[in-house]
């Protein structure tokens, strides 16, 4: 039993220390010890990621720590995903993330992606320079509950409004929470765009999404 706990702790430690280049070896070791892939993911990697998220929120960790943990998680997932049996009923709410058209800034979105995963969300990352139609199309295809559109430059703010309008035109605006973020975004921009909100950082974004999902469910 002690050995089993040690294996899980080692996995958590790897995520905390950002050992992205060797995590698959630890995953293999855990599989060999009899752990199910889903247990390695939930009790090892995700648990480690939550610790990192908390330390970053408390300003004990810096962004590189968070990024390396996210990369470790990504490498671990690559190894484990084919081995995990998918139970669609247990799906966490889908959140679609992407950076708007003509904008290739990835960092803010990447942080969001890591923090949302640590909070138990299923994240679909559309990448950067994403055309407006792609946000809408992917939201429909995946039955997403939330769209998070990132915009780093003031000159690409116009695409946030475009996404908002496209969601209305496609008839899914009322079914979806539309959040926006990035340095040029403010409360006033949220009103202009017609979005549901924005957050100053990734942790505030998670709280906001949880709160909005709960209110939606209640209504």
């Amino acid at each position, binding site marked *: 039993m002690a050995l089993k706990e040690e294996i899980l702790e080692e996995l958590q430690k790897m995520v905390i220390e950002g050992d992205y280049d060797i995590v698959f070896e630890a995953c293999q070791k855990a599989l060999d010890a009899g752990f199910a892939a889903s247990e390695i993911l939930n009790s090892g990697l995700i648990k480690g990621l939550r610790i990192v998220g908390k330390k970053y929120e408390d300003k004990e960790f*810096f962004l*590189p720590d968070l990024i390396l943990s996210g990369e470790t998680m990504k490498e671990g997932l690559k190894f484990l995903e084919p081995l995990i049996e998918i139970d669609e009923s247990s799906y966490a709410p889908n959140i679609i993330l992407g950076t708007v058209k*003509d*904008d*290739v800034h990835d960092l803010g979105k990447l942080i969001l992606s890591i923090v949302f995963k640590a909070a138990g969300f299923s994240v679909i990352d559309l990448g950067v320079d994403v055309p407006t139609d792609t946000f809408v199309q992917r939201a429909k295809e995946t039955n997403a509950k939330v769209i998070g559109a990132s915009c780093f430059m*003031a*000159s690409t703010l116009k695409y946030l409004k475009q996404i908002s309008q496209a969601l209305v035109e496609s008839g899914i605006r009322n079914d979806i929470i539309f959040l926006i973020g990035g*340095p040029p975004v*403010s*409360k006033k921009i949220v009103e202009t765009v017609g979005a549901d909100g924005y957050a100053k950082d990734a942790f505030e974004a998670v709280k906001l999404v949880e709160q909005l999902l709960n209110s939606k469910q209640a209504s």
Partner: protein
Amino acid sequence: MSRKSEYEQSDAKGKILLPKKRCALAFSLKEPDRVPIANYGLEFAAIDAGFKIGEVAVSSQKIVQSTIQFLTKYDFDQQLNLSIDPFNIEAEGMGSKVKFPENSMPVITNYAVKDHKDIYSLQVPDPQKAARMPVILEAHELFLESYGDKYSVAGLFTSPFSLAIGLRGYINMIKDMKTKPDYVHKLLEVATETVLEYGRAFKEIGLPAATILEQFASPPNLSTKQFDEFVLPYVSRVIQGLKPMSITLGGVWGYSFLKDNWKDLLRKIIASGSASTMFLDPDGEYIDIKEFKRISKFHRRSTFSGISANLIRDGPRELLRERISKHCKNCGPNGGYAIFALYLPPGTPPENVLAFASFVKEFGTYPLST
């Protein structure tokens, strides 16, 4: 009145100074007639002058036209960057691919260093020939020739660390710093030589001062340990290597992330040889800005403070007025201080830009009201 006598008059106490003199006094730790007003970011100015952002990004003439029209119309004292996207210029010159959207800022779409072996083919570019480096140098030269008697002109180039990110990408750099630090140092060596070469080209034009733009190496983007290893030694080399130019390490933010240790970062920046210090919103809301100014002045450094872009764009106007009043009251006494718009986003109402300048005049005119 001849220009010479205009300058002589402007030296006297109680007279309104020319922007150049006002800035010179503030940067030499003296009290001018009022706190100088500067601007960072050229997109607003480009659009306001009737140009598309994409065309100003590649034209020295349009950079100069946008700048002078902005300074004159809004009564600012200095434009900190004579380029639309200063953080891309050297990386583009070294082979990173840049996309130029017509109506938004150019962005790097393809990094020059995709693989570790690519570093060995990197070369220090010739600033007179490589990509847009000559365009930016020409813009500074033109501005200096045409308006240098009235306005201060300073160079602006990327720091070695931020340039390395423009060549390799932030995520890759973070991964390399953990697993291949020697490789990162090799990349930083080439970046440092490039920045020095570009800096010398600014020096040859006759610019006495420049800012090194360090948009990436700030907490929480880097830990203090990483800052000490991968940023400071290279920045110091650039500052020492370009003497007697007066070089400021600018763009570092994130003091508030360090909580009580923010003074350590400030002291490191001072120790690098940076001519001035700078804090940017929202740090100004979380750290003791009076103490920031005191430490800077003690070490014979002038201080810049940057006011939030979104606050200038969106208001409320009263909050903007309060913020400027706070900065001027805490950092303005005894001079050695300038305030700047930390980027003016396209879409900022022109009346807000005018209000920004008028609030600085209201609270930043010497003698300051207590």
